[in-house]
């Protein structure tokens, strides 16, 4: 390793300019030979509360990086200035793995990881601010699965980030609680932003465009944390999600139809409002049950207590894909309505009279918004089938909005 670098790694000096870590140290790293070892060593030996600064430039890594010290900030010079490239990575299933709480990753880019971009597992308090994760060749089945990937974590803040090219979800928050995703841009991924098996998430002021599906709120069976609930998706721009699905089959997102704006699957207490949706060729908003077989008696596959209101709808449903093309469009005709609920409900009673009030689906959209309840369960029960209900007024109602998510690192 170059002497210069050793000297750099050893340069610890007190930073008075960082109030959040007034007693922390700043460790400066520059690109160059041996940076893999220099940065990893800094990530292991840093005192809790330290700041690791990555100077502008391009950093090449052949292996993964990991952070397991509490309250560390890793800060670059900007999401286009400090670029951590993993093009030549031969080991490790993500670029950076975070397993300690209080981490803040800021103003840098992670490019072309063979696996996931940045994963945070089992941590309390993690922040991604102005981070870019990108697969630079664009959509490709061989790209890594997730860009920003906090999982089993709590107090998650993703703010001002950009994620492009993920073969599963650009921004994926799984099995977590107390989550904010805002001011971020998800583009050219299979799923732009996905909140899965999570509790208390606010997703707002983001742009999701040119993905296969824009924003997904999912719950899956057979996982340690299930029963996703309390998710608000609002003021997002979800337009022209027009990238053909390039996810490897087998994964649940591989079933997402191209041109899905916002999709809610098997969650409860979800509020979708004031989003700007247009040019989503399958549909703008899709509310559906988990469609696959499962054997988990504790799992509820239905969307319940969903309130969709005051969204702005542009053109949608003009060229449906996958299940929207094969199952929904034959029922609704073209274009597929802007808001579609599959009408999957729990049992005979609900099929005819609607779910109980606390589980009801309420839709209060601007005049002229097209809608269909496919009444799938009723259709299965009745020998002569059931036709879809296009009357949006039948679903009028409202649910009080939950208090915003409040995070300790965002006060």
């Amino acid at each position, binding site marked *: 390793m170059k002497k210069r670098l050793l000297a750099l790694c050893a340069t610890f000096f007190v930073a008075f300019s960082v109030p959040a870590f007034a007693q922390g140290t700043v460790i400066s790293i520059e690109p160059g030979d041996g940076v893999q070892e220099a940065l990893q060593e800094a990530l292991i030996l840093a005192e809790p509360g330290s700041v690791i600064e990555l100077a502008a430039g391009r950093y090449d890594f052949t292996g993964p990086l990991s952070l397991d010290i509490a309250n560390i900030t890793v800060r670059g010079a900007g999401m286009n200035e400090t670029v951590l490239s993993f093009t030549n990575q031969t080991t490790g299933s993500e670029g950076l793995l975070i397993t300690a709480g209080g981490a803040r990753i800021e103003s840098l880019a992670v490019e072309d990881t063979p696996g996931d971009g940045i994963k945070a597992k089992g941590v309390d308090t993690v922040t991604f601010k102005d981070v870019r994760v990108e697969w630079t060749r664009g959509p490709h089945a061989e790209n890594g699965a997730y860009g920003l990937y906090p999982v089993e974590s709590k107090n998650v803040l993703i703010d001002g980030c950009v994620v492009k090219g993920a073969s599963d979800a650009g921004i994926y928050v799984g099995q977590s609680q107390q989550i904010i995703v805002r001011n971020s841009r998800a583009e050219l991924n299979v799923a732009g932003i996905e909140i899965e098996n999570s509790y208390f998430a606010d997703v707002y002021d983001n742009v999701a465009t040119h993905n296969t599906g824009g924003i997904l709120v999912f719950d899956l069976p057979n996982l340690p944390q299930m029963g996703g609930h309390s998710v608000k998706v609002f003021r997002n721009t979800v337009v022209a999600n027009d990238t053909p699905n390039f996810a490897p089959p*087998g994964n649940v997102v591989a079933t997402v139809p191209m041109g899905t704006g916002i999709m809610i699957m098997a969650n409860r207490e979800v509020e979708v409002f004031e989003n700007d949706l247009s040019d989503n060729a399958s549909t703008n908003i899709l509310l559906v049950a988990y469609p696959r077989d499962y054997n988990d008696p504790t799992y509820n596959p239905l969307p319940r207590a969903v309130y969709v209101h005051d969204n702005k709808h542009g053109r949608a449903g003009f060229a449906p894909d996958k299940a929207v093309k094969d199952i929904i469009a034959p029922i609704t005709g073209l274009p597929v309505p802007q808001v579609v609920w599959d009408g999957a409900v729990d049992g005979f009673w609900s099929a005819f009279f609607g779910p109980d009030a606390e589980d009801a689906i309420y839709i209060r959209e601007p005049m002229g918004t097209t809608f269909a309840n496919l009444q799938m369960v009723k259709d299965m029960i009745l020998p002569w089938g059931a036709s879809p209900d296009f009357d949006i007024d039948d679903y009028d109602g409202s649910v009080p909005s939950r208090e915003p998510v409040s995070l300790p690192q965002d006060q």
Partner: protein
Amino acid sequence: MFRPVLSKLFLGLLMGVTLASEPASAEVNDAALMSARPAKLLSEYGLFSDAAHQAPAEGVLPYTLINPLFTDYAHKFRFVYVPKGRKARYDNTEVMRFPVGTVLVKTFAYPADFRVPEENIQIIETRLLIHQERGWNAWAYVWDDAQGDAVLKVAGKTLPVSWIDEAGAEQSTNYVVPNKNQCKGCHTFDKAFTPIGPKARNLNRDFKYASGSANQLDHWASLGLLQGAPASAEAPKAPDVTDAGASLDGRARAYLDINCAHCHRLEGPASTSGLFLTAGEDNKTTWGYKKRPVAAGRGSGGLAYDIMPGEPDNSILVYRLNSVDPGVMMPEVGRTIVHDEGVALLKEWIASIE
């Protein structure tokens, strides 16, 4: 290559030691082991009387496992040190409850020719798991070319290794010495750093001690190193995965247990997957039977289920074990090449599942 040659190897090394002209000072340095700062050189701990031949100091006991974790076919020397007067508490299911002061030592080595494993051994690294007051700590020491001593490597290292395998074929790979965090990547149980290997079911076998062959659990108990242990005949015992006479199901589950279950369990780093592979897991979906992937990404290989009964080639488990692509392969760390014998065992097993 599956067959453990370690005891034989160890005996060979012992002989080497007796031939050595002067045994080095052989006293374990407890103070160095308990220090928050790791020693720069492995020799500072005094764990070996002759480290180059992996001859332990007094009080440092060699041991072996029924089934080892696969690490690029590396041969391993394992030792346990428990300070005088202290005891590990027996656990029937999980790792023995080792007292503070315990050190688990694992040295990774490649004989030049696996057909003569006692000769021309290149020692690569020695990993220490030290039970300090504040919990377990892990450090890796990488051996110098002269095999004189090993130097602390905090950030890990990649080293080219080559050998001739048991079939006489030349093999080579870039062996990866893990960094401290990668150690934790597997050694985590309920968020605490924890050893993996020394569980009753995996220790319950004979070892050729200098004093003669004995069951390890019985021997540990007789040395006063382990308390609360039942007679070894009463303790759980994993089938040897290489023992063709043992049940296929038992062997496959034992293989998954030692190679995967430290992460793939509710308390482990892969809890998020919902795929739990401990030998005792009896929920079929949970151990993979027609279980769909969750966050596998391209690791799914386009396949629908972790284990597709009767169809090993349509099972994600086999696909990922058969890969060396970092975005696909399992385990995520600890190997750079495919464990052909392990894959063959799992294929045979899945083919037999209805």
